[in-house]
């Protein structure tokens, strides 16, 4: 009895507190029954990341590559090669970053399957080598790739860190290293004559997005928020300088990887009344950040880059991710490719870098079909290659960068 009074008081207080929350959520209540009835407005479950426009480094629109001109891995069907001919793929196939590696391998699989179906006398093997995206693991894996005499060319390594760690090994073996996703600017400054990058590097993305925001979107006040990763800091710097006077220094802020609570940053953005917020970082922080911006009533356009360009961002941020602009050096998947990809890969849908994996594998297959049987000749073949893929035109400068580096702007809708 002694205890019942405070207990009752607390129970009443809590019930009334919860009532307040309930009242507020009542607004557009459909009076749903059980929890199993999915909410009355299922709109945001349809949200996905859609391609909007392809831009160059100065933010100007560049028409998308015509997928019908793309190189066809099937070729003329008369190719002949040894049945042991192998294309290797190196990247994270397990571990926390496996999604990207699997996207690339699955994309390459579509090309190899199409090739092998059409060319009965040239059955090329595709072999995935798992680095877990870890530079240290990659240094153990790289020698086994080099030692496998059947490997004629390498698709990868996938990430910048591991590429920096093992690039020399492949260079010494003069094994073609064609990456679909390593975007660190410095990688092509090592003098690796065997290394080619199948997409724009990080130095292109920041200025391209910034110019797009100022010139096309006509934003005059942008808050640049960065996380504390090398990627976020570098990107924020590039974006801020390219934004020029549109970057508002007063509302620039830094957050930490692993943070989930952004109230002070949200408050700063809110007070600034900016047109847009550029977030340089990854989706794990971007999702709670955009949710908190929206629930605080900030309706500035949310802009971010490839670190956030991931279906997981939309899943976790839900309806608050709507209309967010996300850039990526990766190209969108054309419909026919998506269909083939699904049927080849157990119903999975193409993701970031899948198209690059397909395009680059196709280039290697065309080299093999042209009668190339050794590694050095394949490197030369790629060096002199010029042709359209699904995502873009592929032709490399002497350093291994694409001669025309382009960025895609995507939007959540």
């Amino acid at each position, binding site marked *: 009895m*002694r*205890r019942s009074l*405070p207990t009752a008081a*607390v129970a009443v*207080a*809590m*019930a009334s*507190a*919860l009532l*307040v*929350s*309930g*009242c*507020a*959520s*009542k607004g*557009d*209540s*459909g*009076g*749903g029954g059980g*929890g199993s009835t*999915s*909410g009355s*407005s*299922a*709109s*945001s*479950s349809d*949200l996905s990341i859609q391609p909007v426009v392809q831009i160059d480094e100065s933010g100007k629109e560049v028409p998308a590559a015509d997928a019908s001109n793309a190189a066809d891995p099937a070729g003329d069907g008369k190719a002949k090669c040894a049945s042991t001919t192998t294309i290797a793929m190196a990247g994270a196939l397990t571990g*926390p970053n496996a999604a990207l590696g699997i996207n690339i391998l699955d994309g390459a699989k579509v090309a190899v399957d199409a090739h092998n179906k059409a060319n009965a006398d040239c059955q090329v093997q595709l072999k995935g080598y798992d680095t877990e995206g870890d530079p240290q693991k990659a240094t153990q894996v790289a020698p086994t790739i080099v030692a496998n005499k059947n490997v004629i060319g390498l698709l990868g390594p996938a990430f910048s860190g591991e590429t920096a760690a093992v690039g020399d090994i492949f260079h010494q073996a003069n094994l073609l290293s064609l990456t679909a996703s390593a975007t660190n600017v410095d990688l092509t400054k090592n003098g690796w004559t065997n290394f080619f990058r199948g997409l724009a590097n990080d130095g292109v993305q920041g200025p391209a997005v910034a110019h797009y925001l100022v010139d096309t979107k006509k934003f005059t006040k942008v808050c640049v928020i960065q996380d504390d990763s090398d990627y976020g800091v570098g990107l924020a710097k590039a974006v801020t300088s390219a934004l020029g006077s549109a970057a508002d220094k007063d509302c620039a*802020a*830094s*957050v*930490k990887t*692993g*943070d*989930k*609570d952004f*109230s*002070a*940053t949200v*408050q*700063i953005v*809110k*007070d600034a009344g900016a047109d847009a917020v550029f977030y340089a970082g990854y989706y*794990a922080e971007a*999702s*709670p950040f955009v*949710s*908190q911006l929206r*629930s605080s*009533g900030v309706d500035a356009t949310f802009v971010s880059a490839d670190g956030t360009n991931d279906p*997981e961002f939309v*899943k*976790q*941020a*839900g*309806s608050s*991710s709507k209309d967010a602009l996300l850039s990526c050096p990766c190209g969108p998947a054309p419909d026919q490719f998506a269909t083939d990809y699904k049927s080849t890969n157990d119903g999975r849908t193409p993701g970031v870098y899948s198209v690059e994996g397909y395009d680059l594998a196709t280039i290697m297959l065309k080299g093999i079909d042209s009668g190339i049987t050794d590694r050095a000749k394949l490197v030369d073949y790629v060096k002199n290659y010029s042709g359209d893929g699904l995502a873009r035109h592929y032709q490399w400068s002497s350093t291994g960068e694409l001669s025309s580096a382009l960025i895609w702007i995507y939007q959540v809708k």
Partner: protein
Amino acid sequence: MSTLLLSDVLVSAHAALPAHPLLLADGVIDFNTSRLFSSFWSLTVDGLTYGAIYALIAVGYTLVYGVLRLINFAHSEIFMLGMFGQYAVLWGLGFTPQGDVYTQGTVLTVLYLLIAMIGGMAVSGGAAVGLERVAYRPLRKRGAPSLTFLITAIGASFVLQEFVHFVLPKLTGGNFGGTTAQQPIRLVQEVTVFSFGGADVSNVDIVIVIAALALAFLVDRFVNATKFGRGIRAVAQDPVTATLMGVSRERVIMQTFLLGGVLAGAAAMLYSLKIPNGIIYSGGFILGIKAFAAAVLGGIGNLRGALLGGLLLGVMELYGQALFGTEWRDVVAFVILVLVLLFRPTGILGESLGRARA
């Protein structure tokens, strides 16, 4: 007297800062007082909301420390398990993760939230008791030195994190745990209920603060005014005499872990209400450190100290962010901790779980 000294130090620190042109010129540290004043009330509201959550978690650290003189570093993982617990309960009720907020009407929403809270409490409470059984009790039986407990606590923290990271997704077909955060189940749309001084107070803020204060009050009463609480205080004060008086030490320890775990579970549900996309294996770590700091700030071993420390830390770190720049959050929190401990080594209210009125 000592608070006076403290404020003197703070004032002189403020005055001293602009005298370091190097730091300011480099833009390393801002000193933006106008930002602090213009958004003072907004920061206060947010700070109190997060501070209330810190406080609830801090109670778990403080209770266990009071009874065992042990810093249970795995408590942050107990909180993390609570987040998964309440999420799993909502999942079990038939909610599937989706981008939009479910609209169930007031009564049902309250009901579901209460069920989720009880689920979180059950999971966290169970995990805390289980942890005590598996990790700490065997050590106690063998009379291990206190350093061993500390290392065990840190180890248990890793075990629980990696369990949710790697094992849980395998056990549940990938539905729970893993490397990415859970896709949120949102039951309440955060909307502004009223504004004052430029600050918007949302329904979620109100719920969190009131529920946390209510729970803190309840625990205070439980420890200070019930038979169980008397047992806890007795063991905290003098374990040997308490045992001689017929108090079962082992039972009191179990109750203490249970109580701390249950509060962490409640905090987990409230936190998920505010940040639905924060349910991840690593999601307890930073909060745990902050709550531990809050417990020390208020006076570890002291229940009301945990509450005060939590609220204070929550508010102060947001003021600090507005004043010095957003990246200085943790620095501000821990500098405050250091400053307070300099002048009051036992925290603001001192260690007093055992010494409270019997």
